[in-house]
């Protein structure tokens, strides 16, 4: 017990003497939570649009005006030549253009139907697709407007019309920050828990002190616990800093008992620490550990549903995503912080992460023993 206490004291001393670790623990959550949620925003507002207007009629002008005054588009080109418009796309001046045919108004009036051409630059897929969707929306609205002006509706509508009104729950204004912040919190926990601990153990290998420890009667579990406990506790510090920032800066008031998140965070850290320990067992230098950790980090984050919804992944990728521990913590933080979930709502997450943690740590301790 005295040994264990002293080992922990030594670890804490070393952590607090390493300015890089301290910076990482206190500044990383701050920067990530202050910058990323504002910058990484899916709502696309500045889609550059070009109009090729062969018609120049009242209706055509009205349509152009509707597009121009929507929040989504910048009208950056207006011409009557399709060739010129294609050049705009080539030169990246516009993201999409709409071509209004010469007899647009006339056809619309005569045949109650008209055709528009929309050409989209799909090199930036998200921007192109969303831009096209916005444009479609506006054109659809314009269409209804024209019809209501022209068609004398009978007393009651011959065609049943369904209007869809939607309301967004748990994130009423579809605020992107509210969506991102819990995810980033989860990633921060992963960084501190998984990777700092891995680097720390490998450091002992690199400077040769592990040799000196291996010749001593220090027990494996004492050494491993000495490494894991400090980072487990630091994980809570990071979680607290993160929650404070999301409360004060992003105004995210936890909807439920925050204790649930701390308990789940504790279990999650346990699992991810085991993962870090595994990395350290199979690497000899901090550089190697760094590269391996980075490799997994990238996959974990991109496949966690943090940026892109898991439901939109192909089914094999969904399987990978649900093996990925980061998926569970991202999901759980969102459930607790935004939806006000309680223990019952994330009991499946608890179960998986607890089991995963046990498996990872058992493997880690086992492989550690085999090596020396």
């Amino acid at each position, binding site marked *: 017990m*005295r*040994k264990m206490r*002293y*080992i922990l004291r*030594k670890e804490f*001393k*070393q952590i607090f*003497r*390493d300015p890089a670790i301290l910076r990482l623990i206190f500044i990383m959550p701050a920067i990530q939570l202050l910058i990323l949620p504002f910058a990484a925003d899916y709502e696309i507002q500045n889609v550059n649009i070009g109009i090729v207007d062969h018609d120049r009629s009242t209706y055509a002008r009205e349509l152009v005006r509707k597009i121009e005054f929507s929040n989504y588009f910048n009208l950056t080109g207006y011409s009557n030549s399709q060739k010129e418009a294609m050049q705009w796309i080539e030169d990246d001046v516009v993201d999409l253009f709409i071509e209004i045919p010469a007899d647009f108004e006339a056809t619309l009036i005569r045949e109650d139907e008209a055709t528009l051409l929309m050409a989209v630059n799909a090199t930036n897929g998200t921007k192109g697709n969303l831009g096209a969707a916005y444009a479609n929306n506006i054109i659809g609205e314009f269409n209804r407007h024209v019809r209501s002006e022209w068609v004398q509706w009978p007393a009651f509508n011959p065609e049943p019309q369904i209007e869809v009104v939607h309301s967004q729950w748990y994130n009423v204004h579809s605020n992107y920050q509210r969506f991102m912040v819990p995810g980033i919190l989860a990633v921060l926990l992963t960084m501190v828990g998984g990777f700092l601990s891995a680097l720390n153990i490998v450091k002992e290998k690199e*400077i*040769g*002190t592990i*040799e*000196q*420890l*291996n*010749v*001593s*009667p*220090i027990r494996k579990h004492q050494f491993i616990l000495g490494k894991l406990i400090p980072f487990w506790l630091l994980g809570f510090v990071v979680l607290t800093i993160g929650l404070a920032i999301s409360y004060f800066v992003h105004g995210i008031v936890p909807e439920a008992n925050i204790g649930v998140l701390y308990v789940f965070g504790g279990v999650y850290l346990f699992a991810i620490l085991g993962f870090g320990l595994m990395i350290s067992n199979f690497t000899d230098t901090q550089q190697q550990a760094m590269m391996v950790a980075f490799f997994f980090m990238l996959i974990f984050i991109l496949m966690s549903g943090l940026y892109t919804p898991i439901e939109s992944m192909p089914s094999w990728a969904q399987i990978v995503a649900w093996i990925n521990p980061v998926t569970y913590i991202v999901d759980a933080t969102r459930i607790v912080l935004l939806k006000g979930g309680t223990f019952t709502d994330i009991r499946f997450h608890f179960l998986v992460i607890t089991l995963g943690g046990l498996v990872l740590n058992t493997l880690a301790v086992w492989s550690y023993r085999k090596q*020396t």
Partner: protein
Amino acid sequence: MSIQIENISKSFVGDRKVSALQNISFQVEPGKIFGLIGPDGAGKTTLFRILTTLILADEGQATVQKYDVIKDYQKIRRIVGYMPGKFSLYQDLSVLENLKFFATIFGTTIDENYNLIKDIYIQLEPFRDRKAGALSGGMKQKLALCCALVHRPEVLFLDEPTTGVDVVSRAEFWDMLKRLQTKGITILASTPYMDEASMCDEIALIQDGQILSINTPSGLISEFDSPLYGVSADDMYNVMNDLRDHTSVVSCNTFGAEHHVQLKPDIDPTVIRKDLEKSGHENVRVELITPTIEDCFMNLMQQ
């Protein structure tokens, strides 16, 4: 016997199989300083790592204080002190913190064994709050020795303890080992410096994983069977070339300001002097000298 090694072999499999140790056997009596003398890559560190239970030998048995290095590795870890060749203490902890840490993990305290490390620790005392990483080479060495001693080991393993340390500190270091010996600690030390061999009670010359000879330093020197001459002249480089070409010369090696020359049996050394003078060398001196450990080593290597 304090350390007993029987037919230890170890090879490493890499791009090609490297035989690090081949059939090594020797024993160290309690309370003796035993020196493993040999060049880099001779297999000294591998042997240390086997004896300190860090790696397993492919073949053979070894015991430390009667404990088997494989079966009783946990017991061995309690009673040995190991100072690896590379400085491996916590550079970001202070002198005192390092010492306390190692005392604690061995379940003891500095005070308990203070009389053992006192002589060394007194020199470190002024720097007790300095980070180990900021110490000079000699001081680091002393700290490492303190840390290896703090739990009062019965056997001390020192892997090249004086490599990279200045001459004065090296001499001091060996004085410290001599004092530790009087306290009944068995010491196995390795060094690439032949001049340190004379400080040991017994030495093993080791090269390419094989032991060339085991003897006391004086015994090893008396084993040197033919007379050895120190030769010097003005143009040392060409003297060496001429000597090596000379038909009566068995070997010629440079040691500081003179060449140590071994002649074929029954050759009069004055012949050599005359021949060298005939070749135009000036101030030629040829004297009978007592061989050093290094001469013995070179001799054994060339055989």
